[in-house]
C-alpha cells in the first residue's frame, strides 16, 4: 500500500498532538506550561480525543476518495483504449 504525502503529514500531526497531550508534567508554580488541557475538569483531553477520532475518519475518507479516483481514471483509460481498437 502506498503512503501519500498527505497521509504521512496528517499522521505526523496526530502523533505530535498526542505527544503534547501525554507529555505533561504536574503543575509547578510560576513555570509556564501547557496547562489548558488540565483546566476545566480536563474536558479538553476529551475534546482532543474526539477531535483526533474525527480527524482519523476524515483522513480515511480522503484516502478512500483518492483510491476510487485512481480506479476511475484506470477504467476511463481502458475504455478509451478499447474504443480506439474497435
Amino acid at each position, binding site marked *: 500500500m502506498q503512503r501519500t504525502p498527505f497521509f504521512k503529514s496528517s499522521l505526523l500531526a496526530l502523533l505530535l498532538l498526542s505527544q503534547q497531550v501525554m507529555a505533561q508534567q504536574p503543575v509547578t508554580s510560576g513555570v509556564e506550561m501547557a496547562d489548558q488541557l488540565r483546566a476545566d475538569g480536563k*474536558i479538553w483531553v*476529551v*475534546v482532543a480525543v*474526539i*477531535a483526533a477520532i*474525527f480527524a482519523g475518519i*476524515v483522513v480515511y*475518507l*480522503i484516502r*478512500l*476518495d*483518492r483510491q*476510487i*479516483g485512481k*480506479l*476511475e481514471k484506470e*477504467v476511463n483509460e481502458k*475504455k478509451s483504449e478499447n474504443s480506439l481498437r474497435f
Partner: protein
Amino acid sequence: MKNIWWKVLAVVIMTYVIFWGLLGPVPRQPILNESIRNVSFHVPLWFAMIILLVTSVIYSVRYLRKGRMDDDLIAVEFANTAILFGVLGCLTGAIWANFTWGDPWPNDPKLNSVAVGMLMYMAYLILRGSFDDEQRRARISAVYNIFVFAVFIPLIFILPRMTDSLHPGNGGNPAFGKYDMDNNLRMVLYPGVIGLTLIGVWITQLRVRLRRVKVAMDE
C-alpha cells in the same frame, strides 16, 4: 479530487461543531445537566438522515421517470447512508436516554415509531437483494422506497405528537421552545445538521463512484 470545496466545508463545520458543542455555553437544566450538549450531536444525525432519505426518494422518482440505472444506484446508496445515520441515532439516543430517562429504550412513541421505520428500511435492502433481474429490482424497490418514505414521515413526525412522549415537541412538550433550547445551542445545532449532511453526501458519493467503477468493469 475535483470539487473538494464542499468536503473541506464539511470538515471545517464539523470541527467547529465538535469544539463548540463540547465547550460552548449551554442552558443549565436539571436532570439533563451537561448531557444537553448531545443536542449538538444526536439531533443533527436525525436531521441529516431525513435529508438523505428525501434525496434518495428524489432519485427513486427520477429513476421511475427516466429509467436510468444510475439513478437507482444513487437512490440506494443515499438510503444506505441514511440507514447508517439512523442506526447511529438510535445508539446515541439509547446512551442519552439511559442517563436522563433512566432506560435505554423507554416505551416512547417516537422510539417505537423509529424502530418500525428502521425495520421498513431494512426490508427495503432485503427486497433489493431478492431480485436477480436488474430492471425489476430497480423498479420495484424505487416504488417501495417512495411508499416507505410516505409512511416513515407521519410515523416519526405526526403520530408521536398526538400522544404523550418524552421527546421535546411531542405530546404538548414544546419543540425547541424557550425551556430547552437557546440561541447558543442553535449556533451549534444547525451547523451540525449541515456538516453531518455533507459528510453523509461524501460517504454516499464514494460508494456511488465505487459502484459505477464496478458497473464499468462488468461491461
